[in-house]
């Protein structure tokens, strides 16, 4: 699995993609979905909710365990991926694509500096990534 170059990554295994229209799309990484196993529920904030970078964004519940998801950027929730909420298996199947979680209107874009590039994230996984959180 390769990690898209255009994304930025957090140590908590979330990714964010900044689109040209100014929205930030957030999801969990392939590594995260693999560690979680079969995802059965997502608890995500309502549109309009303010989120703070690296603070709790929601919960992802797999057959094995429940884990918090942390927002890789601060901002306001614009949209929740209804397909992922109704069919959480898409997060397992396409974590970097159809299985995105929320779209944000970013607050301070400077927060991107606190995130890793794809190369940095892959190096992070190789060094430390065997343990989630």
């Amino acid at each position, binding site marked *: 699995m390769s990690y898209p170059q255009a994304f930025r990554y957090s140590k908590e295994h979330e990714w964010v993609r900044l689109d040209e229209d100014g929205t930030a799309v957030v999801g969990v990484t392939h590594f995260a979905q693999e560690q979680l*196993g*079969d995802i059965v*529920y997502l608890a995500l904030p309502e549109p309009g909710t303010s989120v703070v970078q690296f603070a709790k964004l929601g919960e992802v*519940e797999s*057959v*094995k365990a*429940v884990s918090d998801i942390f927002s890789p950027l601060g901002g306001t929730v614009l949209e929740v991926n209804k397909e992922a909420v109704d069919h959480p298996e898409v997060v397992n199947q396409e974590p970097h694509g159809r299985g995105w979680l929320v779209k944000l209107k970013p607050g301070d874009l400077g927060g991107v500096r606190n995130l890793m590039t794809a190369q940095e994230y892959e190096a992070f996984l190789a060094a430390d990534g065997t343990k989630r959180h």
Partner: protein
Amino acid sequence: MRAEAHSQPLLRTSLYDAHVALGARMVPFSGWEMPLQYTSILAEVRAVRGHCGIFDVSHMGRIHITGPKAASLLHKLLAADVLALQEGRSRYSFLLNEGGGIIDDTILYREGRDSFILVCNAANRPAVLEWIGRWAAPQGAVAVQDRTVGTAMVAFQGPRALPLALSLSPLLDGLRPFTFTRTQILGSECMMARTGYTGEDGVEFILPAEAGPLIWRALQEMGAAPCGLGARDVLRLEAGLMLHGSDITPSTTPLEAGLDRFVSLDKEDFIGAQTLRDQKRSGVSRRLVGFRLLARGIPRHGYPILNGTRVVGEVTSGAYSPTLDMDIGMGYVALTLSAVGTRLQVDIRGRKVEAEVVPLPFYARRPAR
């Protein structure tokens, strides 16, 4: 599946290399390094319900108890009527402490008049050996041999398991539930037992450890899906089967867990009988119930069960059931709250989710043929 500390080196079954080659995620479990899943827990559950799956259950204890006094010893240690158990048959039963609490739940196989195999939970093998040894020593004429490490045990489960397994041994045709036989399979001495822990029909093979990989490969080639501990836990919960250490423990009795039918209260005295007879007479004050959630969420082990604002118990086991597409769980509540249809709540990390008591098992397969 709870994490555990690695204080001791983990044991590996004879199938360890096969699991690793299949890409299994290996986890520590009761002192063994075991496969949690190969592909996906849900896919493995579906394979067993729809077709067939194989499980390495070599970590379970296999204790041979033999000698002229073996039957009378086991009759005293187990809640089942061991003297009435016929050769070639097996029984699900319990080792109880003096207070009627469950030391372990086991399957006892009677091989001969004076020869038994007790299959116990991996985590409890030391405690079971200690308990049997304590009662066997003073009376003598009983040999207790732990053959867990030298043997492998593979469970083949699912609606297609028995028809497919017939090609390994024609003796399986006519092997009734809770019976077993010995035969040669793939050149090895093998015990075949019609038992399991999934709620599906199937057969369990016990054979020399070195023959484990042979039968595993043969069953896989027949189309059986390798299944890990994750799927096994979901399957057994759907089938209303108990997990010792969670649903039943040394401080719960078989009657509280609703397992009356596996207890022979009218036989001679056995350890724990007095408590059970008292409970039978005056009634139990709490019962293990099955419940389903009426909104989304997974009720996990240890979550509080509420009746309004009052905590009335805690979840002993819970899971998302892919077979029923429902969130299910079990837990002990006061007898007055145990009737089917009773509304309760589960506190899921601060969120109160409505639940309804439902009959156990959650899932029962259609009767065979």
